[in-house]
C-alpha cells in the first residue's frame, strides 16, 4: 500500500498509546457536541476543543482571530513547539476543521488521529472522564498562512479566470441536487436556496473514510477523486455547508494525496446559497 504523501500529518492508535505521557505531545479532542462525546469519556490526558465555542469568532462569522487562537493554545497548555494530535466525533469532521485552523496559524507540528473517537473506542476502549490541567503557556502566532483559504471575492475571480479550477462540493447528494437546504438537525445552517455552485462536482466527504472511521488508502482515494476530474494538476477548492466537511476533504487531498493547490471556501453554501442574483444549479 502506498504511503500517504505527508505521513507526518497522521498518527495511528499505537502511536497515541505510546505517547500518552509524552510531555511534548498534547492530545486534543475536537467535538461538535462535547456533552455527547468528551464529557462521556475521552483519551486519558486529552483536552477539549469545543468546535462551536473555541474555533469560531463569537460575533462575526469567521474562525477565531490570532489573539483568540493564542489564548486558546495557552489555556490548553500548547506551546509553539508542542506536537498536537487532533481527534474527534463525527469521523474527525471537526478535528479536520481544527487542523485547518492550526495550519492557518502556522502551527508547526499538528497531526490527526486516524479513525478518531470511534477507532480508539473500538480498539483500545480506555477512556476517562477526568479533565486534565496543564500549565498555561505563552503561545505566539508567528505567521498567518493564507494559502489554504479562499473568500468569496477570490473564489469568483478564480471561477472567472482559471480554467484549471475544480470546485468540489463535499455535501450529501440531497444537498448538492437541491432537494434540501441542510440536513434537518442543523436548523441554524439553512439557506434561502438549495442547490450547488455551477460547475462543482459532488464527492461526499464520507466516501474518503472506511466504516471504522479511518481514511481510505492512497489508491482508493486517487480513484475516488480522479474519476471526477480532481487530480494533482488542478487548482482545487472544496466547500460544504459551513466549511467543516470541506476541511476534511482538503486534508485528504493536500496531506494524504499530496495535491499542491487545495483551498477551503469556508463561506460554503451558507454564504453562496444566500447571495442575490448569483446563478446556482438545482437539479430537482
Amino acid at each position, binding site marked *: 500500500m502506498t504511503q500517504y504523501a505527508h505521513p507526518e500529518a497522521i498518527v495511528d492508535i499505537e502511536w497515541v498509546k505510546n505517547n500518552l505521557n509524552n510531555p511534548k505531545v498534547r492530545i486534543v479532542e475536537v467535538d461538535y457536541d462535547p456533552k455527547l*462525546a468528551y464529557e462521556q*469519556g475521552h483519551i486519558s490526558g486529552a483536552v477539549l476543543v469545543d468546535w462551536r465555542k473555541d474555533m469560531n469568532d463569537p460575533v462575526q462569522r469567521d474562525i477565531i482571530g490570532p489573539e483568540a487562537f493564542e489564548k486558546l493554545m495557552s489555556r490548553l497548555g500548547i506551546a509553539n513547539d508542542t506536537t498536537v494530535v487532533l481527534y474527534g*466525533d463525527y469521523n474527525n469532521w471537526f478535528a479536520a476543521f481544527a487542523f485547518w485552523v492550526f495550519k492557518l496559524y502556522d502551527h508547526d507540528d499538528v497531526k490527526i488521529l486516524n479513525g478518531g473517537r470511534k477507532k480508539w473506542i473500538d480498539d483500545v476502549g480506555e477512556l476517562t472522564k477526568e479533565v486534565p490541567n496543564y500549565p498555561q503557556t505563552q503561545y505566539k502566532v508567528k505567521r498567518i498562512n493564507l494559502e489554504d483559504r479562499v473568500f468569496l471575492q477570490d473564489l469568483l475571480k478564480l471561477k472567472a479566470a482559471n480554467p484549471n479550477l475544480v470546485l468540489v462540493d463535499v455535501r450529501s447528494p440531497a444537498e448538492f441536487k437541491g432537494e434540501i437546504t441542510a440536513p434537518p438537525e442543523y436548523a441554524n445552517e439553512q439557506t434561502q436556496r438549495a442547490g450547488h455552485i455551477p460547475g462543482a462536482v459532488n464527492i461526499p466527504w464520507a466516501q474518503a473514510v472506511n466504516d471504522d472511521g479511518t481514511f481510505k488508502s492512497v489508491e482508493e482515494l486517487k480513484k475516488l477523486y480522479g474519476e471526477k476530474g480532481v487530480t494533482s494538476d488542478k487548482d482545487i477548492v472544496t466547500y460544504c455547508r459551513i466549511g467543516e466537511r470541506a476541511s476534511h476533504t482538503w486534508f485528504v487531498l493536500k496531506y494524504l494525496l499530496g495535491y499542491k493547490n487545495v483551498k477551503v471556501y469556508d463561506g460554503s453554501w451558507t454564504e453562496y446559497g444566500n447571495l442575490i442574483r448569483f446563478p446556482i444549479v438545482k437539479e430537482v
Partner: protein
Amino acid sequence: MNIEGCEIPDDLYYDVENDIWVRGVGENLYQVGLTLPFFYRVGRPTRIKPRPVGSSIKKGSSLATVETPNYVGALYSPFNCEITSINENIVENIVKNPYKTWVVQLRAVENPLDSGLLAGEEAKAIYEEKLRTGKVACFKTFPEHKIIVLAETCEKILTIVGDYFFKHVKKGESLYVVTQDPATEVDMIKWAKDMKQEVLEIRRQDNIIHVLYRKVT
C-alpha cells in the same frame, strides 16, 4: 418502576451514570445492556460493536462501541470481568426491548455489588435526578425522529417543527420535539390540530415540554 415515562425494571442492577443495566443469569455470570433513557439521550443506534469474546475488561473500560448518527461512545464495564458471549445483530431491535436485548454476557471476577451497582429501588432517586437535569423523558413508542427546538418566539418554534415535520417525517412515523417557553402545551397541541396531525403523548418536566407527534396524513 417508571420515571419520566421511562421504564426502569425493579429486578435489575444499575450503573446510573452510564445508563447501564446488569442482570445475574448464573454463578458469576451477568448480562449487560443499555437502559431506555440512554437511547432517548443519544438516539437510535446504527452500530454496536462488542469487544471479542474472551477479552478481559477492567471496570470502566469499554465492553462495546455504541454509535448513533450523532454519538459514538463506550458501553463501560461496570466491574472487572471477562466477556463470555456477545449478542449479534441487535441494532435494529434494541430500542424496542432494551431490557431483553443484552449486549454482552460477562463472567465477573469480583462481586458486582462491591463495584457500586445499585439495585432497582436504590437507583430510583438518582435516576429521577439524572433524567430531570438531563431533560430526558421517554414515550410508549420509540420515535423515528427527534429535534430539540429552543427559539425566541413560539411562532419560530412552530415554524421549525413544521419545517422538519413536513420535510422529513413519513406517514405513520413519529417526531419527538423537546422545547420550552415561550411555547406552551396548548400551542403545541393546537398546532397538531390545525395541521390535522396527532399528538401521541406530551410530558412536562419543569419548564421543558416533551411532545410526541405522529404524522397521520
